[in-house]
């Protein structure tokens, strides 16, 4: 018997109830951190809307910290005990944090567009969704708001927010690098939610597609 003999539903180890309780317990244990995380996310959104080089760096640092925190407090302490496969995701979260810090601190590092462009609209839209709307998917899944997935504390909204930044960042070669791990996470999340028969299972995948669309959107033609 080898790994490829297992089907996706063989690897689903827990019930929807247990999955929902992950977020409820996480928010209750860390309270009032969910409020602080939402506030920090709100500040980051404002910085994105009026981005300068310094503000961009600050958003990047906030995201890097969040990737480390989520890896430690959620993946390692809560998710891995019920899903042995999560152990393999934790180093990737650390790598994403390092990538953010490295690419954000280079002299010719990440920059965010300051003028309106569809790519920027999609990127900011993804970030805003992860901050304000994604937590409400708990209600759609039949959970209370205690089970909300909060940016900076839960992996899905963090991955979607990072996709938003990667969708609009320049230069493109760096942005593509930042997109890989959040996209992989969102794909596995959609698969997990589908196997759990959860409403809204397609949302993480939709976020990946939107980020890809934004990245592939034609650049504005230079003025003649």
């Amino acid at each position, binding site marked *: 018997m080898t790994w490829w003999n297992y089907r996706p539903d063989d690897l689903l180890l*827990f019930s929807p109830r247990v999955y929902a309780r*992950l977020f409820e317990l996480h928010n209750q244990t860390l309270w009032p951190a969910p409020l602080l995380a939402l506030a920090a996310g709100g500040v980051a959104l404002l910085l994105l809307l009026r981005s300068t080089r310094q503000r961009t760096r600050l958003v990047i640092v906030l995201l890097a910290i969040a990737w480390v925190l989520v890896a430690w407090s959620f993946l390692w302490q809560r998710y891995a*005990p019920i899903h042995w496969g999560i152990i393999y995701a934790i180093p990737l979260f650390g790598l994403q944090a390092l990538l953010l810090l490295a690419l954000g601190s280079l002299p010719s590092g990440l920059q965010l567009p300051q003028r309106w462009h569809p790519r920027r609209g999609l990127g900011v839209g993804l970030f805003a969704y992860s901050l304000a709307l994604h937590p409400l998917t708990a209600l759609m899944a039949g959970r209370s708001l205690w089970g909300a997935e909060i940016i900076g504390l839960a992996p899905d909204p963090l991955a979607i927010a990072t996709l938003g930044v990667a969708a609009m960042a320049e230069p493109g070669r760096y942005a593509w690098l930042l997109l890989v791990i959040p996209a992989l996470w969102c794909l596995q999340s959609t698969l997990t939610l589908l196997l759990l028969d959860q409403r809204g299972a397609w949302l993480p995948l939709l976020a990946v597609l939107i980020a890809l669309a934004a990245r592939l959107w034609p650049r504005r033609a230079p003025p003649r």
Partner: protein
Amino acid sequence: MAKLLVDLSRRRLLQSMFSAAAMTALPAGALARASKPLTRALPGTDVALPRVGLGSWITFNVGDDPVLLEQCTAVIAAFFAAGGRLIDSSPMYGSSQATIGHALAQLDAVDRVYAADKVWTSTPTEGPAQIEASRQAWGVPRFDLLQVHNLLGWEGHIETLAAMRADGEVRQLGITTSHGRRHDAVERIMQRVSLDSVQLTYNIVDREAEQRLLPLAQERGIAVIANRPFQRKRLIRRLADKPLPPWAAEIDATTWAQFILKFIISHPAVTCAIPATTQVRHVRENLDAAREPLPDDAMRRRMADYVQGL
């Protein structure tokens, strides 16, 4: 010392609560019957196991959630109260082993369980350490049955398990498969190796094992544990809106779960079935299926035909 006394008092209180929970909601008749599920002797031993055990796939993987841990403890308390013994788990099942260990400690029930676990690693040299970690999670002095999970690295693990059996570190050894996979390989191993037990998927719609594996188990004196009796709820859901046939009363099957379980455990080669559940009432319902009358061959054919025709 004071802490020890507090712990003991707390444990007694919890045991009383779980016992009371297990007893309540049982009608008097059911209470009287609850202590005596049908058993079947494990081939070559003097151990007789109740014909319905308890699986732990998904249902007991609850992490350290205190609310869900207590729910699982109540299920295991009800299982023992109804006369159950064999609980099956695996290191593949997330925190299920620790949940069982939590319940056994809370209920002071280590000596009541027939502990069946698995070794699940493709690297045989990692087997002993994994088995020891599993044993510590359960909190048992030794496992009664250790099985090679889904044949993963089976050749190396069988050597380890055979040595453990010879040294008295485990009573029995076996192999497992599920979903009807790799029956050819299972058959070859059953013929070549001195196995005590084989675990495979068998239920009223998944009957491939009847062709070769179940007769071979009978011939070679190998116990059979039937997993996925309800196809992980799918079968129960499929049948939920269909009527039980009126003649189900002839075998005292009052629900689809009992109808299916009675079909499985009435096969002469099957030692027990291991349904998993998160609900106390379901564990009682399942154990109630391990009682007379069980279907004879004619009734079994009728049952299978009926379900196939739905």
